[in-house]
């Protein structure tokens, strides 16, 4: 029993990131509201950031900034210092910027969709699109033909 607890404790960062990622994933696939989908995507991205940053951590390590004003002069001192892994930090800095950009464009598209259709619910938008464009999908086309036939 304590063995299992040790294993889980040693890897608890993975449990946290999986939990967060699945919350975001559920929001993305189950929610009909477009804003909630974007929130889900952001939680998903945050989970990945957390995963990478936790991979970079070293127990007892300091931030990847060289110790001393001019690190070369303190070379013998700097050799004792453990730095955390700088490579994932750099990758995630890139990823955060891309996440901000995609979120901004997605929210702008949602504002345009709201102005066009008066709703941000997926069902309402799809129904409105079927009325505007009968050729929107095969199923919708057949439905549209049936409605015209009824009239």
């Amino acid at each position, binding site marked *: 029993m304590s063995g299992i607890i040790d*294993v889980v404790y*040693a*890897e*608890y*960062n*993975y*449990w946290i990131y*999986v*939990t967060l*990622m*699945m919350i975001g*994933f*559920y929001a993305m*696939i*189950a929610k009909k509201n477009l804003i909630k989908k974007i929130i889900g995507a952001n939680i998903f991205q945050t989970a990945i950031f957390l995963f990478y940053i*936790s*991979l*970079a*951590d*070293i*127990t*007892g*390590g300091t931030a*990847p*900034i*060289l110790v*001393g*004003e*001019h*690190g*070369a002069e303190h070379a013998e001192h700097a050799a004792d210092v*453990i*730095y955390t*892994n*700088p*490579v*994932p*930090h*750099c990758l995630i*800095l*890139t990823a955060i*910027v*891309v996440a*901000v*950009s*995609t979120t*901004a*464009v997605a929210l*702008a*598209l949602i*504002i*345009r969709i709201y102005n066009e259709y008066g709703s941000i619910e997926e069902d309402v938008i799809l129904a409105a699109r079927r009325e505007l464009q009968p050729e929107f999908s095969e199923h919708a086309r057949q439905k549209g033909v049936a409605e015209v036939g009824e009239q």
Partner: protein
Amino acid sequence: MKTLALFVVVITGAMLIYAGHDLPAFGDINSPSYQAPMTQYFINNSLEESGVTNIVTALLASYRGYDTLGETAVIFTAGMAVMLLLRRRER
């Protein structure tokens, strides 16, 4: 629909947890990504090669400078895209 989504989410989460057991433990100094020659090279040589004490900045602006240029272009393009999407009606 919601049940199906929950089912998919739980299965995917279980698979990720299962895969996570092969990854290094939290804070492990012997993790492959830290012991890789590339990481050690950046930590040891970034000051002499790029002159900045912040290793992340050295990576971001010097070793991966071309990528960061593209990143700046991405955020610029996002700003222009939002501008085009939302300000078109005013003109």
